[in-house]
């Protein structure tokens, strides 16, 4: 497995390098800190959500609810820190505005995981429930209003810089390292790959399939919730109807381009982040060179098709 993953990863890195070289040659002002920061800030939320998606896909499932969970978390945060209580206790309020939405997201994930592992509902159907209802819940919470705010400590999450890089890019990087370690070195990671690879055999070897699956959907939802907070922080505004829209598809695309197999059993964490970066950079290249949005979408789709074709071609 390792050898083949390396091949795939090498291919992705080669494609990325080509794209960078191409941009250096043709895109004006490509090599400057501002360009890097813009791209990094845009790709981070997708990468964070895609990390969770890759875990879910590795278990043999899929999570369509991530965009809606982002909306719920993103709608809840401003409600919390704009409340009278939070205004009276700014530090505690900020803490609650970050942790509570993540807890709510976790509950959504546990709900998904329970439906799937205990009741045997198909992942695509189970997560469709939140895909449809989650955004509705978020809009009900905010009465459908756009919530704008001015809270520098919260918006730092989306607009702050550390060593010139956006905060959310650092968050994505740290998460990537942590999750890569979890997949390689922990009981949970090994169990996840075993379940995705052959669920029956895993159960017979004593793997706690139900628990691992519920945990996986919970992690995916928490990461989506975090991405929701970041999106709200970037905009200093929360629009329940827009946060995380179509994010599930971006995340799946990043996972697949990164080398995840929808049949399960593989969790290419570095590949997922590189996949997200690749798609982002491709879009940027086209837009920066004056190619219209519509064409960009078509090219993105083309890349996904190529990635899937490469995968199916290499399968034994």
């Amino acid at each position, binding site marked *: 497995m*390792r050898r083949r993953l390396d091949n795939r990863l090498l291919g992705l890195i080669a494609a990325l390098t080509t794209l960078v070289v191409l941009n250096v040659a043709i895109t004006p002002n490509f090599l400057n800190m501002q360009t890097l920061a813009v791209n990094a800030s845009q790709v981070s939320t997708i990468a964070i959500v895609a990390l969770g998606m890759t875990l879910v896909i590795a278990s043999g499932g899929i999570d369509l609810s991530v965009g809606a969970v982002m909306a719920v978390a993103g709608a809840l945060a401003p409600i919390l820190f704009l409340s009278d209580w939070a205004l009276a206790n700014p530090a505690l309020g900020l803490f609650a505005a970050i942790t509570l939405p993540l807890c709510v997201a976790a509950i959504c994930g546990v709900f998904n995981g329970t439906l799937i592992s205990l009741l045997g509902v198909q992942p695509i159907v189970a997560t469709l429930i939140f895909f449809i209802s989650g955004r509705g819940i978020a809009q009900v919470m905010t009465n459908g209003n756009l919530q704008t705010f001015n809270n520098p400590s919260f918006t730092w999450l989306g607009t702050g810089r550390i060593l010139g890089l956006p905060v959310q890019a650092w968050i994505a990087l740290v998460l990537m390292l942590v999750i890569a370690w979890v997949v390689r070195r922990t*009981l949970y990671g*090994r169990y996840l790959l*075993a379940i995705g690879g*052959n669920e029956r*055999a895993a159960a*017979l070897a*004593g793997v706690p399939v139900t628990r691992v699956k519920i945990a996986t959907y919970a992690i995916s939802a928490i990461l989506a919730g975090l991405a929701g907070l970041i999106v709200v922080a970037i905009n200093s505004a929360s629009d329940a109807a827009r946060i995380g829209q179509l994010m599930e598809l971006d995340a799946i695309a990043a996972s697949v381009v990164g080398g995840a197999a929808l049949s399960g*059993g593989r969790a290419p964490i570095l590949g997922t982040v590189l996949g997200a970066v690749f798609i982002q950079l491709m879009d940027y290249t086209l837009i920066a060179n004056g190619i219209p949005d519509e064409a960009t979408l078509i090219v993105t789709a083309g890349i996904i098709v190529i990635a899937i074709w490469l995968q199916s071609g290499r399968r034994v």
Partner: protein
Amino acid sequence: MSGGRVRAAPLPSSENGPGMTEPLLQMTGITKSFGGVPALSDGNLTISAGEVHSIVGQNGAGKSTLIKILTGVYRRDGGTIRWRGRDVELRSPREAQEAGIATIYQELTLVPQRTVIENIVLGYEPRTRFGMIDWRAAEVRTREVLSRFAIDIDPHRPLGSYPTAIQQLVAIGRAASMNAHLLIMDEPTSSLDDREVDVLFGVIRQLRAQGTAVLYVSHFLDELFAICDGVTTLRDGRTTGEARIPDVTKLDLIAGMLGRSAEDIRAAGMTNLAIDSDPDGDTVLETRNLASDRRLRCLDLKVRSGQIVGLAGLLGSGRTEAARAIFGMDRTTAGQVSLQGQTRRISSPREAIGAGLAFLTEDRKTEGIIPDLSVRENLTLALLPRLSRMGVIDEAHERRIVEEFIKALGIKTANMDQPIRELSGGNQQKVLLGRWLALEPRLLILDEPTRGVDVGAKREIQAIIRDRVAKGCAVLLISSEFEELIEGANEIVVMQDGRSVRRLTNPGVTEDSLINAIATGTS
């Protein structure tokens, strides 16, 4: 060919003798090989109209090859097929079906979400003048089929809302309504309960009365005596006997499948049955009257530490089901299991492993290996909790253990990080054996541990098992290979129809006495 015939299974001349009309189906001298390996060297099968006929034979005897040639799935290499008085070529399942040979598969091939009517007419829908489906005619046809077999269901409801048995009857009805002259049923009762089996037999009798022939294949020999008229025995790719059911006994059939004569089995069988067993060693596992919701009816078993107890029986006798019930995979419905003298309720493999049990399953591919994971990850999968602290795997420790097992079991692999799917079957099996041995289980259940591995690996695997037993592990060994049981097991428990019916003690068991016990069972 005559040399291979079983004495106890003579061909009665009254049925197929000269002067009779030609039988419905006559397959003669059928040969077929796959990649140079002959699967059938002389297959013969004769079925008359309105006859319920069966084929028996061990795994690999050529049963399914012969049937697949008849249903057009495989093309024969040689031989002739006469069907309704003419030589025929059956080039595809479709052609066979159009010729009137219908197959009811083990896995139902209907559409459970659609209504009974839609299923009955599927692919052969009656049309109106305007090319639309004539639902009125479809319903009339469906009601005819249902009433013909006295199936009392609402044809407008989805097929999937009825139990498997009913669905199977609908499949049969559908085949019959398409003017099938021969219906092939492959293990039709494998998912039916006793009452449903009776209903199925009723339908088969009706088909017979209406002149339709049935080829009935089942591992449950008792069923053949309940429903069949004739039987063909296959062994090593050739037809070795044909007989009318009233003329043979179960012992004759088993003798024919195994390639010996019933007299030999009877003569050799009754002697050499020692009663007392190896007295030392604590009892590790004991089951009393154990039954499960999956064809295990009554299992009495005792395995001591340092002892190999064999489970013998024909396919379908409940050997694997016994293991599944003990290991917490199937729900037990009666009886009890005690481990080291204490009654335990084990409801999942995870609990079983915690209680010191290990189970090497028969189906390496679907229940054993995780193909994309490495040899190392596969080997330590069950042991992993003991190799980790706070959920973090101690990889150095893991590698040491895997290194040890690769050496001890002689696993041939490039390195421990090679994906297990790239290994040969024998080496995969050794890795899986290692997975369980690493746990140092008190009781190791082995289901056909050497099936499908080459001779060298087989001997090595057997040596590994012996070594563990010498160190005090208790082993429950399920095997279809008599040699393995006779040479390996201290005690052999014989199963029949989901019950443990006989206990033989080694030394003293001979191949003949074992075959006799498997054949006669209860008496």
